């Protein structure tokens, strides 16, 4: 009898704690929506396309921040994707096993470095160099995109390599046996086989990049305008939150920041869910 009660108790408490993940995610959406409600009532969906952000006049528009998030992420992806795929090819097909092991571990370790370090490097080392090249103060979407690309590079390279590794050796060996070169094996066997895995990895990295705060806060410049060029100071959703959250002095200001946070959550949720459900499902099933 005693064991039966404890047994049930154990099962139900583990179930409850497992459900807490679902409750948390639900609460996340509900709370952000509630806090954003005044701004949603005041500006509606027009908030998304309004580009004026004037706290002193209680006018808030999210477009500069949304624009900044999107553009800096696109820049980051344009730089990081080819390099990450290059690294993955190098690691899975080219490098001798010991080099692949050493470099592979190094890349996985670099993926663990806190993102704020990338931000500090960007501010003190990259920005001055870019300033000399492009003029201005070296802060802006291009700098932020560049720092982001370096930050997601290890993560992206590691998961792309893992995806490539799922190609059965026998397929590659068959192609080599018919006299294919390495590039032909890659192009006609490996990449078609792991295509959805690679796309999924790239989108997953995109999801990380768009929500990243610390790597870009230092180098964005925090200016609430649509910049004339990508070399001019701008802002993004996480940067706005990080810089202005503790300064919000009116209710509408505070609520507009939550509106931005909600938009960011919806974007990243959609992106990550798409990566997972559309592209990565197959790999997971292959692994299980």
């Amino acid at each position, binding site marked *: 009898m005693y064991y039966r009660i404890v047994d049930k108790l154990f099962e139900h408490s583990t179930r409850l704690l497992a459900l807490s993940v679902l409750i948390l995610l639900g609460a996340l959406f509900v*709370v*952000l929506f509630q806090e954003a409600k005044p701004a949603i009532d005041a500006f509606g969906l027009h908030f998304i396309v309004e580009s004026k952000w004037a706290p002193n006049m209680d006018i808030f528009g999210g477009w500069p921040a949304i624009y900044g998030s999107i553009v800096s992420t696109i820049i980051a992806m344009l730089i990081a994707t080819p390099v990450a795929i290059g690294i993955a090819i190098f690691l899975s097909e*080219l490098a001798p096993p010991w080099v692949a092991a050493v470099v592979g571990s190094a890349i996985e370790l670099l993926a663990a470095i806190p*993102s704020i370090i990338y931000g*500090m490097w960007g501010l003190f080392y990259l920005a001055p160099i870019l300033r000399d090249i492009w003029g201005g103060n070296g802060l802006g979407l291009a700098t932020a995109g560049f720092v982001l690309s370096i930050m997601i590079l290890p993560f992206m390279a590691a998961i792309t390599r893992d995806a490539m590794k799922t190609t059965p050796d026998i397929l590659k060996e068959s192609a080599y046996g018919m006299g294919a070169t390495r*590039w032909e094996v890659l192009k006609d066997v490996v990449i078609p086989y792991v295509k959805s895995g690679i796309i999924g990895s790239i989108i997953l990295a995109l999801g990380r990049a768009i929500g990243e*705060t610390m790597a870009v806060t230092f180098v964005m410049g925090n200016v609430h305008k649509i910049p004339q060029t990508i070399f001019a100071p701008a802002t993004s959703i*996480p940067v706005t*939150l990080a810089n202005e959250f503790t300064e919000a002095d009116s209710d509408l200001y505070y609520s507009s920041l939550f509106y931005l946070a909600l938009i960011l*959550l919806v974007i990243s949720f959609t992106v990550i869910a798409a990566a997972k459900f559309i592209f990565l499902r197959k790999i997971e099933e292959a692994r299980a």
Partner: protein
Amino acid sequence: MNRQNRRILMNKVVMTLSSLAALAGLAFLFWILGVLLYKGFGALHWDIFTVDMAPPGREPSGLRNALVGQLLLVVGASVIGVPVGVLAGTYLSEYGGRHGKLARLIRDISDIMMSAPSIVIGAFVYAIMVAPMGHFSGWAGIVALAIMMLPIVLRTTDDMLQLVPGSLREAAIALGAPKYKVIMQVVYRGAKVGMLTGILLSIARIAGETAPLLFTSFSNNFYSTDLNHPIASLTVTMFNYATSPFEDWIDLGWAAALILTLFVLGSNILGRYIIRTKKGK
């Protein structure tokens, strides 16, 4: 040029480009690591561990309060996040099953939570804890970090428990053991090493988070262990110091960055080492 040569040339071109990409990517990453080591070790001195933060220009100045605060936050988050994550992961693996509907849903949702923007978690905790309480607090920081930690611990526990062979469970059940005893005394023991590694890696992961702490635990210039009040952390201090115009503060920021990175990388290397020695057996 005949077809044969063109194929070989094409192959060489692509392979060279990939190698160059790998080289360039690694060069940047090692540049960052090199900068960190150079600036960090240059700024490191004994005062950092024994003296609290001081106004710019004043000597001696250190990071003792931030180190202590960071430790409290990370330990606090682990005390909440690890048991909750382990038990929730136990449900997924032992009760929910590999293909159970609810278990799969929870797995998917935690994977998404793992990549959720950390600053949004910070804003969430601000709304549910800081705003009602009226002030920033160490507890709010702990809750924010624990929320980040939960899905990571949950997924690694789930994965590690599933690696324990079913025959071990069946043997214990055949001896008449109730399920919770099977789990605690057989399954957990079988998965001990993997679970420990997962926990270690999740601690390393949250230790480097800044964004969720910016408006939860905030910062504090003084030594404090009171979790009801704002508390200093290494990461927020790095953010404040690196964006300040003061040379000595910036140097301290690099020292904090080095200490944090050494901790994070050390935990990662230790985790890998444990897994590897286990596999070797």
